[in-house]
């Protein structure tokens, strides 16, 4: 059976309310940027010790999620799972939208965002950051081509190849994102090669959580049929990804604890008295890991869309907590500048950081940009299948 794709009407009150709400958030975030750039970063909670704050948390969260959101399309065209094929267009779109939102936040938090052109023209090829700029730009191009192959019937035969290219690129891209931290030799909290694969698996979970929420919301709000087969498959997959993230987190911390030089930073994160410890255990592990897995796998909740939606939201909240612990927590703990010595004065101690409202709004503005991009584009281009009812999505599925 052929899948028919159709734009959403986008004329309902709800549609306009959604656009207006997201628009307000975006305007507020641009206002925050003007405020921060006009005064300088002294109006933020950031300092010379916590150089990357809340904006980076959101930016990297969205960028990581972006590459993961492409997985659904990859499963269809690279791994040949037919049931995911109707979702591939939306997967590509969500991926690009999340990347755009994340990059917006990243760029607008620069000290000199007006010099973006410098970042685009001056490259230091020893810098992971410079590589990331190339990887991000390349991702836009490759996924756009991939989408074109999917949209244009004559090009459909190249979809698998484009999908493979996009899949490979996204793995490299997230490796690059994780390596931003993994290659920082001087900081005890980072400097671990496992950061790269851990970021990849985090991207699987966060990206899929975004995708599930957007898929369920758009089908519910447009009253299009969405069958249990697809929803349950995605739910199960999310559960597996969340478990995999937890596995990597355990391995990373156990590996780090084994090194005497890292025992300080590990006990600071895992058993400390600062906000990072509850953020880790309650935010990341319980809210972002154990509860979503229970919601997905508990027999009584099987196939329940509300709990799957809740699980997805919790995965995202846990993801923010995880990136906060990694990025801010990792900087808050002082570097070991003088091994074997205690620093009495001039450096050391736990750096304090309280995110200011403009920083938080800028971060949320990035999420809003991603969502508004998806909302507009599914109105103007046929991204969504008319129906994802079980007999359409998987005709051979046995009830």
């Amino acid at each position, binding site marked *: 059976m052929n899948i028919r794709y159709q734009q959403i009407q986008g004329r309902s009150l709800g549609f306009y309310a959604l656009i207006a709400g997201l628009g307000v958030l975006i305007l507020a975030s641009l206002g925050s940027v003007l405020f921060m750039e006009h005064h*300088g*970063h002294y109006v933020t909670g950031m300092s010379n010790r*916590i150089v990357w704050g809340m904006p980076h948390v959101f930016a990297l969260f969205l960028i990581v999620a972006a590459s993961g959101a492409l997985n659904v399309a990859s499963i269809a065209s690279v791994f040949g799972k037919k049931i995911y094929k109707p979702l591939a267009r939306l997967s590509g779109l969500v991926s690009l939208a999340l990347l755009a939102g994340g990059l917006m936040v990243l760029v607008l938090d620069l000290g000199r965002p007006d010099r973006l052109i410098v*970042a685009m023209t001056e490259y230091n090829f020893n810098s992971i*950051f410079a590589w990331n700029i190339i990887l991000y730009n390349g991702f836009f191009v490759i996924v756009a081509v991939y989408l074109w192959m999917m949209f244009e019937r004559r090009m459909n035969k190249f979809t698998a190849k484009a999908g493979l290219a996009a899949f490979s690129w996204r793995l490299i891209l997230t490796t690059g994102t994780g390596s931003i931290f993994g290659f920082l030799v001087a900081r005890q909290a980072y400097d671990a090669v496992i950061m790269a694969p851990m970021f990849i698996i985090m991207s699987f979970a966060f990206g899929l959580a975004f995708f599930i929420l957007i898929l369920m919301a758009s089908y519910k709000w447009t009253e299009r049929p969405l069958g249990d087969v697809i929803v349950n498959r995605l739910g199960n997959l999310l559960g597996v990804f969340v478990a995999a993230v937890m596995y990597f987190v355990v391995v990373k911390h156990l590996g780090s604890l084994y090194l005497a030089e890292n025992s300080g930073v590990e006990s600071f994160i895992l058993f400390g008295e600062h906000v990072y410890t509850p953020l880790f255990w309650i935010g990341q592990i319980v809210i972002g890991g154990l509860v979503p897995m229970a919601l997905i796998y508990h027999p009584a909740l099987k196939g329940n869309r509300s709990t799957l939606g809740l699980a997805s939201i919790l995965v995202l909240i846990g993801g923010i907590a995880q990136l906060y612990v990694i990025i801010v927590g990792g900087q808050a703990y002082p570097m070991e500048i003088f091994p074997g010595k*205690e620093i009495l004065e001039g450096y050391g101690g736990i750096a304090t950081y309280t995110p200011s409202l403009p920083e938080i709004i800028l971060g949320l503005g990035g999420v809003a940009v991603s969502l508004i991009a998806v909302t507009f584009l599914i109105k103007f281009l046929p991204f969504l299948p008319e129906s994802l009812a079980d007999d359409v999505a998987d005709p051979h599925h046995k009830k």
Partner: protein
Amino acid sequence: MSKKLNRRDFIKSTGVATASVATIASGISLTTFAADENPVTNEKRWGMLIDTNKLTETNIDDMVFACQEENGWGFEEHSTGDQKANWIRKVKVKDKATGKIDALPMMCQHCDEPPCVDVCPTNASMKREDGIVLVDRHLCIGCRYCMMACPYDSRSFVHEDLSNQKEHMPRGKGTVESCTMCVHRVDKGEMPACAEAVNSDAVIFGDLYDANSKINRVLKKVQSTQIRADLNLNTGVRYSGI
């Protein structure tokens, strides 16, 4: 070898010569030195040896003060605590085993393999041929990745608009900065302000490669260390006594 001199090369190869002053904004001037007589080469490597046994805490305070006066940092009005610029500071450490306490001045260590230069996406962080690590303020986009990478916490981000800047040391909101080893003085044959502020052998500045230089001769004799020597960065600033 005929090579066009672009701005970066020009700044890199800045030597002792006539100074030309270009006004880039009201009150802020950019001073450059023409590079004709003594171009910067890798035949020199500027360095500093700091003997903490000879250095009193007052000496260190004087060094910090001299740097502030020379380069005009630390007078930011709105920035608080860790937001203020800090190019050099006094650090006191206590040995965990023996309890011995040392005070030392801490600034950019001018690494031979600087992590800040490696990570900088736009080549704004750079190392001159003579080993001085600098930030090109025209290329810096304020991403602060160099601050994440620096093992010495030696870099500062300018968190606010600045006024009353020194003509020879233009700074800018939203960019990163650190100790320049007083490159503007060194290129004129003078010593960095901090070294000059200590009127003794406690701080020796000079060319590490020159067998006749004082720093080279003393380093051959005394036991010295590099901070975080384990990172193999081959720092230009060396310490003895700790």
